[in-house]
């Protein structure tokens, strides 16, 4: 039996957790390749117009996987860190099963619909049993996997903190969801362009989630979405340590459309640039915007030095 893992959405939040869990259980799996134009186009053809770009990309990845594995792994997740999530994470399993119903696509998944720390373990236990493993095996695999994910994130956070302290370049905080910033089609070109413009991209997603969520109350006390809380918290923690903030959003994102406006209203004294990406790849527009934005940062520094 071979499981297919789409490199989209929650993969970027749970990469080590998933792969270590399956490795420990000895389950064979295949991960779809980094997003490319073919995957985006395939996804866009399968999706209805109203879905967001990351969801279209998810469908593209599933389309790539559908003939290469026995089952596709796609969990249904309603909460994270005790807060709600965007509806696409609740809907993705059913959305995919419906979209590919003629293909008789088999899905394997876990459901996290309750808050609390035990919910995730319980969900994995249920999925492990479905795959035919014993309780002890599942328990060991889950906690090993949880460790792996934890250390991976900790290393990432520490590494970034070091860069933040040492770097002499213009530091630009890049605000984007995990599945956007790490995506080869959406976030990577932006990060690369910033580096080419001699800036140090600071990835909001790499900041510690719990610290950020706590800090987010400085900007908003009532924000409902866990992942947005994480990003907003990174803004309140780092806004005085960076030279600028780039908000990278995919079209059309419901939570971001509100949160971005709020950030722009509440955060002053730091130049903010909002970049909205959609399925067309118009890098020329992005280049012009980033270039002039970095000019603004440099002008501001020049003025402060005068």
């Amino acid at each position: 039996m071979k499981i297919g893992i789409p490199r989209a959405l929650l993969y970027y939040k749970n990469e080590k957790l998933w792969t270590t869990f399956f490795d420990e259980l000895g389950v064979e799996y295949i991960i779809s390749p980094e997003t490319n134009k073919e995957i985006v186009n395939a996804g866009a053809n399968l999706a209805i117009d109203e879905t967001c770009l990351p969801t279209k990309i998810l469908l593209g990845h599933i389309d790539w996987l559908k003939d290469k594995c026995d089952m596709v792994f796609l969990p249904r997740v309603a909460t994270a860190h005790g807060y709600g999530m965007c509806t696409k994470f609740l809907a993705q399993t059913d959305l995919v099963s419906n979209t590919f119903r003629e293909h008789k696509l088999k899905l394997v998944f876990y459901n996290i619909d309750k808050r609390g720390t035990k919910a995730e373990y319980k969900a994995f236990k249920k999925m492990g049993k479905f795959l035919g493993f014993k309780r002890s095996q599942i328990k060991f695999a889950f906690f090993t996997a949880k460790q792996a994910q934890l250390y991976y994130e900790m290393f990432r956070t520490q590494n970034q903190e070091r860069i933040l302290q040492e770097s002499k370049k213009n530091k630009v905080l890049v605000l984007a969801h995990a599945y956007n910033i790490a995506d080869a089609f959406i976030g990577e070109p932006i990060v690369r362009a910033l580096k080419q413009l001699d800036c140090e991209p600071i990835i909001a997603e790499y900041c510690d989630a719990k610290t950020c969520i706590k800090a987010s109350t400085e900007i908003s006390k009532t924000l409902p979405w866990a992942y947005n809380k994480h990003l907003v918290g990174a803004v309140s923690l780092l806004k005085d340590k960076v030279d600028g903030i780039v908000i990278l959003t995919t079209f059309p994102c419901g939570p971001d459309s509100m949160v971005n406006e709020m950030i722009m209203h509440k955060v002053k004294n730091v130049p903010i640039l909002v970049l909205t990406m959609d399925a067309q790849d118009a890098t020329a527009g992005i280049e012009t915007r980033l270039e002039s934005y970095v000019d603004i940062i440099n002008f501001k520094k020049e003025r402060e030095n005068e």
Partner: protein
Amino acid sequence: MIKGYLGIDIGSISTKGVVIDNKNNILASEYLWTEGDPMGAVKRLLKVLEKQLKGKDVKIVSVGTTGSARKLIGVMTNASVVKNEITAHAIGTTTLHPDVNTIFEIGGQDSKIIIIENGFVVDYAMNTLCAAGTGSFLSSQAHRLGVPVEEFGKIALTSQHPTNIAARCTVFAESDLVHKAQIGHKKEDIIAGLCKAVVTNYINNIGKGKKIKAPIVFQGGVSKNVGVKKAFEDAVGCEVLVDPNGHLMGAFGVAVLARKSGIEKSFSFDVADMEFKTTGFECPKCANHCEIICVFKDNELIDSWGNKCDNGAVKINRRNNG
């Protein structure tokens, strides 16, 4: 001999060129249509500029390019500075009007607002997805009404009661315009209404949430339209400056930047006689299908771009062109 600095602004619709001396005086300038062929337009531009400089003993020591074809023309003219149009316009305008706080710009396909504090750019916004309310919108509507776009402004000023026209979207504006004409609105009222609609659209989209403070400079091709200028003044409630050289501001700005850069590179007007060619192809090496552009000078590859990864990098024979 005077040292000259050449700035070229290659927009989607028009190509602008300015030669300045080291005191920012304009020695030569030209404005012509791009006609979808940026390299051809620049060749024509260079010929005109060369003619204007004849007998003045000016030597071009540095070239700057801006506008949507800046990269291509930068390679062609061996430019010292290749700069985005927002910075170029801001530099150009603040050089001539050091006290400016807001720049409105409406060009052929894009419109932008630049906010300046104490001579430094602090914020900007650009139209994102559509070209409603830009020069190309006005010229297509002028065509529909059978009026040359150059006379649009003058006709608009004669109107007493501008018609209300929805300008959020070009398609809707067009149907609204046809409807208003059919129910008997006068032509000058409709034209004035269009100018007003362009401004409303601009203030609501581009200027949304921005601090618009006087002095305001209005530039770009559409600034030549007095009707739009007046509509802007009515909307913001203060005078809006239009510089006689407003259409050249991007080229002027990038010439200033080329001068300030201190980088001097050899340049000769002979470029206008050389044969430049571009070819585009789709890279077959991975699933991204990048469109790669190669630039040839006298059949020799001098630059290429468009690849997202190293697989698509085109090797350039650096030995032959230093």
